[in-house]
């Protein structure tokens, strides 16, 4: 039996979750677990369904103060901390997703429109180097701040799974909306000419008006965020 296989933790959690339950997985993961052949790192499975929003809120409240990421200028930013903003929007992006790139002008419009109303926006990149991000920002004229999230620390908290995906956080760090920017992308290869429902704008308008968000979760279409590879050396038996 060969033991030099690196397990993707996302996959393992998918298998274990129904059997062990989420709480147990978290416990296991926090108490570094070693079997003869397997090493794995602490990660919780990005949550996929609507109920995931509720589930993720609990983690968020624990973790939010500890999330510090570098922005494109190298400065450390605490995107989840309260800086007096009325709401925070995280756009999970990748430089190479054709659907995400199509949204660049709309992202810029949203940033500009809601900035005046006290909303802070960040682009969060999980897979790119600083140089790639800088190039992307200039090519697509993206004006919002860019955060580097190489360990997928930030993306996993609200349970973001694809890029582009948007997440709206309230002043208290609660997740108020997660999902698509609008309904333009139907599936890979099928994109409407114009959106019919601008979900993110609707959510932000509700939040700013102090009303509950009608549609808290929508299914985003885009390129998948992948969990980072286990960084420990592979073990051989």
């Amino acid at each position, binding site marked *: 039996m060969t033991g030099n296989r690196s397990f993707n933790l996302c996959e393992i959690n998918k298998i274990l979750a129904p059997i062990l339950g989420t709480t147990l997985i978290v416990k296991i993961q926090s108490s570094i677990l070693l079997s003869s052949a397997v090493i794995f790192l602490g990660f919780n499975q990005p949550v996929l369904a609507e109920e995931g929003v509720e589930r993720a809120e609990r983690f968020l409240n624990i973790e939010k103060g500890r999330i510090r990421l570098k922005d494109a200028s190298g400065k450390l930013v605490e995107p989840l901390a309260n800086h007096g903003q009325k709401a925070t929007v995280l756009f999970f992006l990748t430089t190479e997703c054709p659907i995400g790139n199509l949204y*660049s002008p709309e992202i810029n419009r949203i940033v500009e429109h809601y900035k005046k109303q006290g909303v802070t926006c960040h682009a969060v990149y999980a897979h790119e180097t600083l140089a790639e991000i800088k190039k992307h920002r200039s090519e697509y004229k993206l004006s919002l701040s860019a955060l580097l999230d190489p360990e997928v620390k930030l993306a996993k908290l609200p349970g973001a799974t694809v890029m582009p995906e948007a997440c709206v956080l309230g002043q208290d760090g609660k997740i108020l909306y997660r999902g698509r920017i609008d309904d333009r992308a139907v599936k890979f290869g099928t994109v409407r000419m114009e959106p019919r429902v601008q979900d993110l704008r609707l959510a932000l308008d509700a939040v700013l008006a102090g009303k509950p968000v009608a549609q808290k979760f929508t299914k985003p279409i885009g390129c998948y965020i992948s969990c980072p590879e286990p960084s420990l050396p592979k073990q051989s038996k």
Partner: protein
Amino acid sequence: MNLSSKSATFLCFLLLPLQGAEEKSVTFSKDIAPIIFENCTTCHRPGQIGPFSLTDYKTVKRRAKQIVEVTEDRTMPPWHADPGDVKFSNDRSLSPEQIKLLADWVTADRPEGDPAETPPFPEFHDKWQIGEPDQIATMAEPFTVPAEGRDIYRSFVIPMNLEEDRWVEAIEFLPGAPEVVHHILYFLDTSGKARRYDAEDKRPGFNGLKSTAGFGYIGGWDVGTEPTELPHGLRFFIPKGSDLIVQIHYHPNGKELTDQSSVGFHYSDKPTARPWTIIQVPPHFGQLQGIDIKAGEKEHIEEASFILPEDCETFAVNAHAHHLAKRMELTATLPDGKIIRLLRTTRWDFRWQEDYSFEKPVKLPAGTRLDMLISYDNSASNPNNPTNPPKDVRWGPQTTDEMGSITLAAMFDTKDQKNATHDALRVFLVNQLIDRLWEGRADVLGSKNKQLQDSVQMLKALDSDKDSKLSPKERIPAILFIQGSGFLKRFGAIGFE
């Protein structure tokens, strides 16, 4: 700690079957790289239209889940013809076995295998895939494609400066901005009309939706296709003094880009081995078909049939419609009753304008009936519907209009056969005109002038048995009249002259 060690034991049991499976599982090097290199890398490599590269283990591994999704639903590789009676030589679709290998590889957590087993990366030429052309025609000025907005159709006029007629054996298109150049059509103009259009328009080129009447169509290119190398010793004819018109369809992709594309021509000393042309059913993209799709109509069917007057051999088929078309079919019924389905797609996608080349030419004897069918979905539930809420749609060049026809490329033994086929297509078009006038659909001509009113009066007078229909015999004077009137000139060429 007790809990953890118990879980560890439990985990080992859970993982054992996985590890067993891995030993006989598919690997990137052995199974996946050949599929990717053969089918994806042409476009998915740096500098090409593919929005991301699939060139090695790392890049493919990262996209693995997405690759499984788009191959399983056959979004990729783009190929929209259903498997049918006739095999295509340029079939880009993956086999069910290949699709399963990709899925199995992801289930096995994407193992690399032995890198030494990875096939060599295919050799792509930096520029021209089929060698340096004899002549390169490049857009005179770059054209700016904005970051977003609706698709853009733009025609660019490039003088060929040919002092003598030439036969062309291959054409290769080299997009200047491959990220946004989606597909193109080539035309030739010897009348100077295209130059006038260009001069009237301040920006480079002219609106690509302007009528192409009077221009000779010589083919096209779409994303991911090979350069046009004509089969069976066939050649395109370019008369001296021609201007090349390159009609480019741009897809804005989120960033502003400039495009300055080139077309490479490979000339031949020999003329075409056989006369050949295109047979479009119905002709002129269905302009006189009378298309009228009501708002909300989920399945609107348009049909047209054409009987071949002469023997021919078809070697390729191509379909064209706008965004509402869903199903498109062309079937040949031979004089002996044999039925050959030449093309069927149930997933028509405007974004992919493909030419389907037959592996072997299909013989269609004189008397063969070609039946074309297109089904349109003008409901709000069609995500490709460009109008929301849906509106009534008729024929027209705009994205929000519709059109539709299926085209065969066919070769003949003699020039007379080709000419007779063109004549029959003209009569087909004239008959469609008579039908539309009879129905009061003068709108298909985009005008309501006096001459048309007179024509309607004339048609009524021809109905000698007063059955409110024009029989084939009753129409003959009308057909002759319309043909003699020069009216057809406004439609331009019927095929390759």
